[in-house]
């Protein structure tokens, strides 16, 4: 049902023209999204209640190398857990959503530099500001989240709909 509606709306909009109403992608997966989100929330809750730390990935990564010894090990352990948990889950249940990375090497490197630079300057990313900051009602994190969502939307809009050559 959703599939056919999306196709029909796309046909009405015509190729290359942005549709007036949002067209929902076939890949939309609210159930798995909620379940995965709950796991992410559980992980952040665990790190808070067990270790007293915020599960902000960019900050944990940035401080994992320079930090004093006692503060380094838990960070490296958390970071190592990320790929282990993802790969382990994929081994058990399959690679549920696949993997596709399309940007050119130049765009990859520019994106990585901006994400690294921006998250340090702004003091957090989608996990630290988005998941943890919003959950504790931080106005600072709300401001950060609104800003990076806005520039994220704007960047993709510019790449896909203004210049048209993006992916």
């Amino acid at each position: 049902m959703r599939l056919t509606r999306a196709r029909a709306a796309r046909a009405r909009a015509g190729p290359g023209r942005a549709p007036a109403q949002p067209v929902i992608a076939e890949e939309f997966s609210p159930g798995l999204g909620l379940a995965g989100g709950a796991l992410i929330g559980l992980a952040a809750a665990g790190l808070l209640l067990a270790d007293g730390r915020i599960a902000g990935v960019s900050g944990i990564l940035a401080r994992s190398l320079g930090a004093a010894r006692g503060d380094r090990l838990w960070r490296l352990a958390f970071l190592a857990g990320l790929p282990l948990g993802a790969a382990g889950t994929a081994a058990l249940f399959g690679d549920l959503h696949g993997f596709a990375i399309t940007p050119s090497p130049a765009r990859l490197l520019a994106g990585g530099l901006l994400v690294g630079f921006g998250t340090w300057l702004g003091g957090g990313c989608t996990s630290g500001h988005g998941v943890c900051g919003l959950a504790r009602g931080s106005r600072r994190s709300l401001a950060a989240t609104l800003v990076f969502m806005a520039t994220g939307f704007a960047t993709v809009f510019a790449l896909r709909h203004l210049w048209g050559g993006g992916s």
Partner: protein
Amino acid sequence: MRSLSALVCGAVFGAGLLVSGMTNPAKVLGFLDLAGRWDPTLAFVMGGALAVNAAAWAAMRRRKAPLFAPVFALPQANAIDGRLLAGSALFGVGWGLVGLCPGPALAGLLRGELPLYAFVAALVAGSWLAQLYTRRARG
């Protein structure tokens, strides 16, 4: 004990990223593409994570200390300043260019995908440059 619990939390976090589909950059870009074929999944991921995590914050306020550490190490900053806004704006641009933020980038490291390694190397370099920059700005 502290590192073991951090490892478990990291693994659960990584599992959540995979289950939710956020490890696939194309899916994240689908969320950021409001004017295209929009994939609202990321909003549901945030919703699920916030609901569970908000309960943890409520539990934390009733406790004096975490299980395995002496104190809760919470962020002290509360200023909404130019640094926060500029940094977040730059982060969003990088996120939109590729469809990856730090968590999903690291969670994919066992896939053996060369572009991911390039992205993570650039991310670490960018973070390092920012640390140099903020240190110098502070004098």
